[in-house]
């Protein structure tokens, strides 16, 4: 397999050359790396302990001590914002991991075995693609909570988001598999006696990879939004510091009526920037892998 | 009628310009049938598209003039240019390509330029469209069908019918038979010859297939590496090819009466048009090349009405 490593490294540097030319892609990457840095260095960058309560300093708009102001308990919102990055990134990445694994597996099987199993799986993919995801996620979380499992809620959220987001990946993989399957070299591989898995791994996956990667990045964007929404609705762990939770408490403490815009706007803006970052990266990769999107004939 | 002088069309690329058409000149009279031949990438399609300025956004005409009935198309305003397009000069693209709009009926697509350029009623336009369809050998009733319901050969006929819609003076045919099987190819060739006879059309036929040119053209222009290397009437080209590239091209065709040998192909590959060589662009592959050929671009020498761009003739 060493024969595939060297061309891979070469195509990687080639890819980077093209990618760095895309303004959208570079900007997205900067945004995402910025948030990763903050998440990693949270302990060093944060001026206060986000859970520190200061009853004398509640409902304060941004000031020289609390750059983003304080909430109803006197928490420093700037520190909360910094720590909130961690939850968003963790849930986003891990949930996407689940989605990609499940989606790739189902997509591969569905595309490769085109008879009964493939057709059936295609219907399943389509079904999950169109069912409204939010009610489903809410119900799943409710089920877990009612079951009173010892699993920490964070992982429940990760699982639920992951398990509802696989259909996009599956669809892409499936159509790619169908296309690649037609090509001759798969016929030849089979003629030589290569087993099914070998064909899938060695021939189909490398061709499918760029699109899957783009899709994965976009899935992270969606996962972050989903997590924020679940937290906001109060379904997440109320003891975690996350942007969604911040908004949850903001709303349940009538921040809107008290005009506490500093509690509401920054988390939203942070979410927007993080999601935008991932989306821009995803779109860039898509554009690069699909030459037609650049407006020229393939 | 059509005079192309020193046409230069370049494509913008990373690191410079691709000199797809570099100083090309030729002349076309009324009713003449010119064949533009050369291998893929030699610039023949770009040259033809330049005539009506149908170039992609990364290409532009860098110099020269294209005189149609005395007016320079290169310097023309957009509005004037659009009036010339199709009404005076039309193009037949390869029908095998997606050159027909898949969601519109054939009759609509043929009637479209008629309605655009002439003041006729919709009724009349569609009447004419149906007649044109018949003219090229397709059943009139099929005019209301969609492109995907036709075979490759029939789509080519439709393209031809469409090109004739406004009774143009010049029709450019870009590889009209390349993607077709031999039977259909002959049919289309016959159709083109028939049309040339019946209507006083000038045609420019672009192809890499010399046999088609032999069948349908009076004059031939051979292009190589973005430049015109030989120009003569069709008989002279085949009987007395002067440029080594031309003779190479002709030799590369198996002769049904000749000896049973592998045809000789031309060694080497076409020049990189981003950084073309200074001297004769064919020199690297030419068996007769020497010091003279690598120095300056060759002048065109004349032998009667037979032009050739080679030091050695």
């Amino acid at each position: 397999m060493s024969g595939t490593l060297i061309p891979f490294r070469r195509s990687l540097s080639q890819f980077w050359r093209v990618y760095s030319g895309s303004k959208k892609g570079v900007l997205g990457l900067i945004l995402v790396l910025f948030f990763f840095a903050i998440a990693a260095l949270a302990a060093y960058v944060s001026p206060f302990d986000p859970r520190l309560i200061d009853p004398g300093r509640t409902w304060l708009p941004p000031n020289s001590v609390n750059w983003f102001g304080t909430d109803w308990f006197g928490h420093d919102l700037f520190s909360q914002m910094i720590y909130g990055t961690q939850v968003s990134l963790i849930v986003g990445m891990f949930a996407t991991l689940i989605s990609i694994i499940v989606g790739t597996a189902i997509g591969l099987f569905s595309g490769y075995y085109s008879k009964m199993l493939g057709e059936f799986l295609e219907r399943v993919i389509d079904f999950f693609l169109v069912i409204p995801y939010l009610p489903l996620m809410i119900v799943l979380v409710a089920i877990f909570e009612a079951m009173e499992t010892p699993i920490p809620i964070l992982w429940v959220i990760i699982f639920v988001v992951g398990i509802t987001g696989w259909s996009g990946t599956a669809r892409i993989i499936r159509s790619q598999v169908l296309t690649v399957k037609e090509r001759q070299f798969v016929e030849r591989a089979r003629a030589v006696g290569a087993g099914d898995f070998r064909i899938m791994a060695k021939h189909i996956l490398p061709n499918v990879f760029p699109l899957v990667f783009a899709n994965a990045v976009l899935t992270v964007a969606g996962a972050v939004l989903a997590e924020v929404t679940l937290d906001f609705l109060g379904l997440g762990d109320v003891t975690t510091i996350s942007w969604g939770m911040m908004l949850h408490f903001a709303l349940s403490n009538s921040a809107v009526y008290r005009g506490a815009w500093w509690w509401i706007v920054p988390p939203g803006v942070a979410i927007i920037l993080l999601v935008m970052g991932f989306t821009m990266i995803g779109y860039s990769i898509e554009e690069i892998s699909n030459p037609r999107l650049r407006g020229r004939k393939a | 009628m059509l005079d192309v002088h020193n046409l230069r069309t370049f494509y913008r690329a990373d690191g410079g310009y691709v000199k797809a058409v570099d100083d090309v000149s030729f002349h076309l009279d009324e009713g003449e049938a010119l064949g533009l031949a050369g291998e893929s990438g030699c610039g023949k399609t770009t040259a033809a598209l330049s005539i009506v300025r149908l170039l992609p956004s990364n290409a532009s005409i860098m110099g020269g003039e294209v005189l149609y009935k005395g007016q320079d198309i290169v310097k023309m305003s957009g509005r004037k240019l659009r009036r010339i397009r199709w009404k005076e000069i039309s193009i037949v693209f390869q029908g095998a390509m997606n050159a027909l709009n898949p969601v519109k009926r054939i009759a609509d697509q043929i009637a479209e330029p008629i309605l655009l350029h002439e003041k006729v009623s919709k009724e009349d336009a569609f009447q004419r469209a149906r007649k044109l369809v018949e003219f090229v050998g397709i059943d009139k009733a099929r005019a209301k069908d969609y492109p995907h319901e036709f075979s490759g050969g029939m789509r080519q006929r439709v393209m031809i019918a469409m090109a004739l819609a406004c009774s143009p003076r010049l029709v450019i045919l870009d590889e009209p038979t390349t993607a077709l099987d031999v039977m259909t190819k002959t049919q289309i060739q016959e159709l083109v010859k028939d049309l040339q006879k019946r209507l006083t059309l000038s045609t420019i036929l672009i192809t890499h297939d010399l046999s088609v040119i032999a069948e349908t053209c009076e004059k031939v222009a051979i292009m190589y590496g973005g430049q015109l290397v030989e120009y003569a009437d069709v008989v002279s080209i085949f009987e007395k090819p002067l440029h080594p590239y031309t003779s190479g091209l002709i030799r590369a065709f198996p002769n049904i009466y000749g000896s049973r040998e592998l045809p000789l192909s031309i060694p080497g590959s076409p020049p990189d048009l981003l950084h073309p060589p200074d001297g004769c662009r064919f020199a690297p592959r030419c068996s007769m090349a020497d010091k003279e050929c690598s120095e300056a671009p060759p002048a065109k020498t004349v032998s009667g009405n037979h032009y050739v761009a080679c030091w050695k003739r």
Partner: protein
Amino acid sequence: MPGDPARILIPRGHNVPLSLIARMREFYGLDKPLLTQLVSYVAQTLQLDLGYSFYYKAPVADVIAAWLPNTLLLVGISEVIAILLGFSTGAIAGWRRGKRFDIIATSFGLTTWSMPTFWLGIVLIMVFSVQLGIFPVGGVRTAEMAYANILQQIGDVGMHLILPVITLTLVSFAEYLMIMRNSLVDVMTEDFVLTARAKGLTEQQVLKSHVVPNALLPSVTTVAIAFGFIVGGALQTEIIFSYPGIGMLTYMAIEFRDYTLLQGLFFIDAVLVIIANFAADIIYTYIDPRVKFQ
């Protein structure tokens, strides 16, 4: 489904004789084996009897029927605007790919797509309802208001609808913008566009007559798929604006563990999704002559 519904109905902390619980279970058919419950549910559903809501003490079908029109109004208006806006902006953006309009339009769309729907709603309420007092804060009509005529009713409902519609529209339209833009860019590389130009058509004519009709094809398919996201967005919007639609109803059904109601709601969701997909399929067969209705 977890959480024995019978126990939930009975206020916590009270000591209830087991016999009462048993009788309640019998009333709601909870004592029969699970499979029987499923079968009878399907049978009932097919007869449009969706069961009885625990919380509302009324037939599920009635409850849903009361709340559904509000959602249809909200989602209907929002999506129509979003599609029109998204497609037209996307077409121009694709046509002027890389130029200022494209960059501005796609950036704007990207930003609104990345917004959590509920957050946008909250911000709009904060600015327009609380601070500026222009629009009402929630609900679909002013309570206890008697309408003098139909115009007044439309006006009142309209005022209540404006902010929720803006919220839902802004977040959805970006998807339509992107798909139209991308399929337009794709179509522009096709050969028949060159043919159209060669005929002497102006750029605008080429766009309207040849490019857009072809770019619509993949766009229509996407609309159907987007439906799943629309429901999620509508749910959030209704919750924030206390809008009495089935999104809000779903949320409350989950809160109060009203499972029959929830089942009915999921069923309605599924039906709506199927209808939407079906409609998209039919529309597609109309606009693409290569596809015949099956």
